[in-house]
C-alpha cells in the first residue's frame, strides 16, 4: 500500500528526514517510535502533504501512485488520513459542515452522489457513539474550546467518518487519560480491517498495549535505525533508546 524510499525532507533549511525507507501493506499496523526531535512528526506531516515541509529527495508510492506529486486534498481522497498531533481550532466552521464537506469531497472523488441528510446524520451519530463523544461537541465549531482529550477523540471520530485506507496517528495518545486512551484505542481497533493499514507514531509503549502493532520501527536523527516485531517496543520500554543510539 505504502512504499517510502530514501525520503529526505527539510524545514526552514534544516534537514529533518535523512533517508527513510518504510513499507506498509494492507492489514498491517506499524508503530514508529523514537525520542523527541527524531523526525516522527515530520514524517507524518510529509506524508499528509503539509506545505511547510519540503521533500528534497526520495519517493512515496501510495497504491502505486506517487504521493509527492499530489495535493494534500488528493492524498486524503486517495485514502490517506492524518490524525494531527495538534488538531487545529477553526472558529466559525461547525463540525457538522466540516464533516459534511469532507465526506462529500471524498464521495465526489469516487464519482458518488453527495450523502443524503438522513444518512449523514445517522453516520455522525453512529461514529460519535463509537467514540463516546458528547453530542454537544459535534454541534460546535471544529475543535474550538475542546479539551486536549476531546480534540484527540475528535481526530479518531473524523477518521471513523471518512474511513480511510491508511491512517497515520501522530501522537494520538498524548494528552489522553487512561479511560480516554482505552476508548480511542478501541475505536481504532474497530476500524482496523484486512484492507486498511495504520501507522502509529508514539513516544510511549503505553498506546501499544491497546493497539497491537505488527511492526515496530525506531526513528532517530531522521533515519530508521531499527525495525522489529512487537517485542521491540517492550525492549524499548525497558531499556530506553540509548542502547540503539550508542551501541
Amino acid at each position: 500500500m505504502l512504499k517510502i524510499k530514501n525520503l529526505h525532507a527539510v524545514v526552514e533549511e534544516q534537514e529533518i528526514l535523512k533517508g527513510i525507507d518504510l513499507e506498509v501493506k494492507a492489514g498491517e499496523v506499524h508503530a514508529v517510535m523514537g525520542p523527541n526531535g527524531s523526525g516522527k512528526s515530520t514524517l507524518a506531516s510529509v506524508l499528509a502533504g503539509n506545505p511547510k515541509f519540503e521533500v528534497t529527495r526520495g519517493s512515496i508510492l501510495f497504491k502505486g501512485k506517487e504521493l509527492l506529486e499530489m495535493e494534500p486534498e488528493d492524498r486524503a481522497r486517495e485514502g490517506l488520513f492524518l490524525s494531527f498531533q495538534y488538531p487545529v481550532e477553526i472558529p466559525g466552521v461547525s463540525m457538522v459542515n466540516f464533516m459534511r464537506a469532507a465526506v462529500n469531497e471524498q464521495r465526489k472523488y469516487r464519482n458518488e452522489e453527495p450523502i443524503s441528510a438522513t444518512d449523514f446524520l445517522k453516520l455522525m451519530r453512529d461514529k460519535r457513539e463509537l467514540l463516546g463523544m458528547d453530542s454537544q461537541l459535534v454541534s460546535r465549531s471544529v475543535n474550538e474550546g475542546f479539551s486536549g482529550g476531546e480534540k484527540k477523540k475528535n481526530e479518531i471520530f473524523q477518521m471513523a467518518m471518512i474511513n480511510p485506507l491508511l491512517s497515520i496517528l501522530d501522537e494520538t495518545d498524548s494528552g489522553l487519560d487512561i479511560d480516554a486512551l482505552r476508548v480511542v484505542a478501541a475505536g481504532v481497533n474497530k476500524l482496523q480491517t484486512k484492507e486498511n493499514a495504520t501507522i502509529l507514531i508514539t513516544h510511549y509503549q503505553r498506546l501499544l498495549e491497546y493497539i497491537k502493532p505488527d511492526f515496530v520501527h525506531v526513528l532517530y536523527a531522521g533515519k530508521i535505525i531499527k525495525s522489529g516485531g512487537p517485542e521491540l517496543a517492550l525492549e524499548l520500554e525497558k531499556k530506553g533508546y540509548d542502547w540503539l543510539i550508542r551501541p
Partner: protein
Amino acid sequence: MIEQQYIDLFKQYRGELDANSVEGLNRHRDAAFEIFTEIGFPSLKQEEYKHSNIKRCFDADLGLNLRNIPVPVNPYDAFKCDVPNLSTYTYFLINDRYYDKAEQTENLPSGVFVGSLQQFAKEYPIQFDAHYAQIADMSDNGIVAYNTLFAQDGFVVYVPKNVEVEKPLQLINILRGGVDLNVNRRILIIAEENARVKLLVCDHAVDDVHFVVTQIVEISAGASAQVDFYELEENSEKVTRLNNVFSEQKENSNVVTSGITLHNGYTRNNYRFRLLGEHAEAHAGGLAICDKTQHIDNFAFLDHAVPNCTSNELFKNVLKDKATGVFCGKILVEKDAQKTQAYQTNRNLVSSDTAQMFSKPQLEIYADDVKCSHGLTTGQLDEDALFYMRARGIDKEEARLLLMVAFTRDVVDMVRIPVLQERLITLIDKRFRGELMRCGNCEVCK
C-alpha cells in the same frame, strides 16, 4: 469650489424644494445652509476623512429630483429582495421618496407609525420636532448639513411607550434613475420607553447610472427600549453611499446596529452612539466584503457620557484585488462615566498585495474605573487551518471559502433575528463564490 454648484442650486430651487416637502423639514434648511456654506463637504485634510475623498464624490454632474417627479417603478416587479419572507411588513423608499402603495399583510400594533417622514411630520408634529435633526448633529458634519439642506422625505418608525413590534420591519431602498443622481434620504427611528422594534434596511441600486447617496439615520431609544437596526448594502459599483447613523440612548436601553456591506462601490458609514442614561448598552457590528476597486470606510464614535454603560464594537473586512478598507473607532469615556465597559475589535483579512487596509483605534478615557479594550489585526487566512481542512480532502478553494465565511461569523451572530442570520450566511457564502452579481436579484441586472 465644489460646494458652490450645490449652494447655487439650493438658492435657485429653494421654492420648489419646500413646495415638494413639508414645513417640518423645510424649517431646518436655513440653519443647514448656514453651516454647509461655512464648512462644506469633509476634505481629505480632516483626520477623520483622510482615506475617503468626499469632495470628489460630488465633483460630478449629478441630478437632484427636487420637484419630486415620480419615478415610474413598481418595486414588486422591478425587484426581488435577497432577504425574502423575513417580514410581513415590507416598505420601500424609491430614491428618497416613500412608496405609499406597499401592501401589508398584517396590521401593526396600535399606536405604531411606520411610513413616510412627510406624513409623520404632519400627523405627529410633537414627536417629529423632538427628534428630526435633533439627534444628528450637523454643526461639524458637512454631509449631515448637506442632507438636511436637500432632504424632502424619508422613512419613519415610531413605537410608543410599552409597545413591542414583534416581527421585524423591512425597508428596501431602491435607487432608480435615468441619469446620474444625488439622493438625500432620512430615516428616523423613535422607540419610546420600554418599546421594542427591529428594522432591516436593504439597499439596492437598480439602474446602471452613478448614484451619490447621503443617508442620515436618527435613532432615539427611550428608557429600557430595544432597537435593532440592520443594514444590508447590495449596490452596484457606481454607487457612492455616505451613511451617517446617530443613536441616542436613555437608561437601560439596548441598541444593536449592524452594517453588512455585501456589494458596493464607495461607502462611508459614520456611526455615532451616545449613551446618555445609565446601564445602556450599544452593540455595533460591521462587515464588508470588497474586491475590485471597492472602498469601505467605517467610522464609529462611541460616547460614554454616564456611568455603568456597555458598548461593544466588532468591525470586520475581507479585502482583495485593489479594494480599500478603512476603520476608525473612537471611544470617549467622559469624566463621570465610571464603571464603563467599552470593547472594540477590528479584524481584517487582506488576500492580495494590492488591497489596502487602514485601521485606527482611538480611545479617550477621562474616568478612572473603567474596562476598555481594543484589538486590531490585519492578516491572511490561517495556514494551519487551511492545511487541516485539506488534509480531510476538502479542496483548497473550498477550504478558503469556508474559512472566509467562518471569519464573518461573529458579526452575523450579533444579529438578533435568527432567520436573517441564516440568510446572511447564505448571501456571504454566495458573495465569496462570486455568485452574487451586482445587485443580486433585480430584473435589470439579470
